[in-house]
């Protein structure tokens, strides 16, 4: 263990746990909010079933604003709102609202794109069967777009992993925070190496899990 003199494995373990907590919590709420938002974007979009030019433009604008904001800024700007939602602006709980706010618009756009890939003929056939709008979404659109939506969740999860690295700003901890504070600011290269390798493993697991699920649900 001579090479890893600076590494406190307990700290690493706690940081890993923090990263996983932030990832799990924020991914859950991102999908919960982003999926309906993506469906709404798709449905109100140009030439779709519920084309609403004004509403689509408004939603689209909000999504673009949130997406263009650097995450580190969002983290700080959101502090009052975060306090309101979770009661604290610090730690893992304080990081989740800005993470969700940062990832939801991104995820919603990916969902919108996945839904646009669904053959219009399938929507038409489902309409011709006498399906209600809710039935068209639940029984046709979402099942048909499932591989695309799983791929979107995968990409979003990986994006969230990199966002969590900045969550140290509000004291949320996590592997990225450890890498910045010890690895970068204190020149502890061994800590940097361990955290980066752990993040790499996490991303690898997420990506291959996502890819497998996509293959499993692809029937084309």
């Amino acid at each position, binding site marked *: 263990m001579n090479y890893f003199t600076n590494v406190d494995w307990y700290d690493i373990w706690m940081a890993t746990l923090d990263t996983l907590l932030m990832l799990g919590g924020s991914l859950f709420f991102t999908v919960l909010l982003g999926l309906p938002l993506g469906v709404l974007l798709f449905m109100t979009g140009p030439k779709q079933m519920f084309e609403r030019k004004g509403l689509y433009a408004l939603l689209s604008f909000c999504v673009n604003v949130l997406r263009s904001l650097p995450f580190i800024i969002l983290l700080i700007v959101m502090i009052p709102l975060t306090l309101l939602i979770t009661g604290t602006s610090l730690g893992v709980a304080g990081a989740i609202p800005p993470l969700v706010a940062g990832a939801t618009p991104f995820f919603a756009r990916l969902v919108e794109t996945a839904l646009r890939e669904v053959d219009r*003929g*399938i929507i*038409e056939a*489902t309409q011709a*069967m*006498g399906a209600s709008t809710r*039935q068209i979404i639940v029984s046709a659109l979402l099942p048909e777009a499932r591989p695309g939506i799983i791929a979107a969740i995968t990409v979003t999860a990986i994006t969230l992993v990199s966002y969590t690295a900045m969550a140290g700003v509000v004291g949320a901890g996590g592997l990225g925070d450890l890498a910045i504070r010890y690895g970068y600011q204190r020149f502890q290269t061994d800590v940097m190496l361990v955290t980066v390798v752990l993040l790499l493993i996490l991303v690898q697991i997420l990506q291959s899990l996502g890819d497998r699920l996509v293959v499993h649900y692809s*029937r*084309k």
Partner: protein
Amino acid sequence: MIEFERVHKTYKVGGREITALEPCDLQIPQGQIFGLIGHSGAGKSTLLRLINRLEEPSGGRILVDGIDVTALPAKGLRQFRQKLGMIFQHFNLLSSKTVADNVAMPLKLAGEHTAAEIRTRVAMLLARVGLSDHADKYPAQLSGGQKQRVGIARALATSPKILLCDEATSALDPQTTAQVLQLLNELNRELNLTIVLITHEMDVIRRVCDQVAVMDAGQIVEQGPVAEVFLHPKHPTTRRFVFEAEQLDENEMANDFAQVQGRIVRLTFQGQATYAPLLGQIARQSGVDYSILGGRIDHIRDVPYGQLTLSLVGGDADAALAQLKAADVTVEVLRA
């Protein structure tokens, strides 16, 4: 019975009005196979989609079994659509669902059946279209003809009285087309199913339809029983479709006629007259010599027909023609 009363459809594209369907009156009787033929952009697809209001009419009324479809509110329209089957050129099956789940879909959406009822009905439908062994496959594992048969089973799931076919055979090869048309033919007779089909192939019309309407530039330009329209096309568009299907060329025919002497007549035989040895008999009796310039012999739906173009030389041609007319042969004199 489907009735169109002054139904028309216009689109607005960039401030300009485009007419997809000129005001149109049409009656499609129960139990018939009704064909709509036209080139792409002729308005046939619009007309078909007006029946289940996948396209909203700009004006006029559409009555299906006396119910004004154009006046139905959203919920009523959904219930009406549940009682109407539709199949598509590209099948439009859900790739994420198995064959059985695709067929079950209209029943599940209607929400009026138990799971056991749905299973029984799906098994019966798949057996009817000959796909019982493929129930658990996904559409991507099937051939085009099999996919369309799944489409037909799905369309018939809720026991509709009307089936709309949108270019249902246009993506299939000739042999598969024949099988699918045969299936539609049988279903029409078994279930007294009204079938409205659109196509750009005269051959599809000839093989299965009772009535045909020819569309051009948003208008129905010719309409009638298939035998009448097919054997005696009047409108230029209809003539083009028929000549295309028969690989005939009007210019070539005119050239051929210039080479021969005597009268030129076209004889059309239908039903039993097709099989009778009329031509030889009558030629012997009247002393007329004939040469055959062209002809076609085939079936319209199940009725055999023959159409021959002859030049007549010598003998008593008038008597010969009178005898043919007496034997229910339609005689058209192309050159006196």
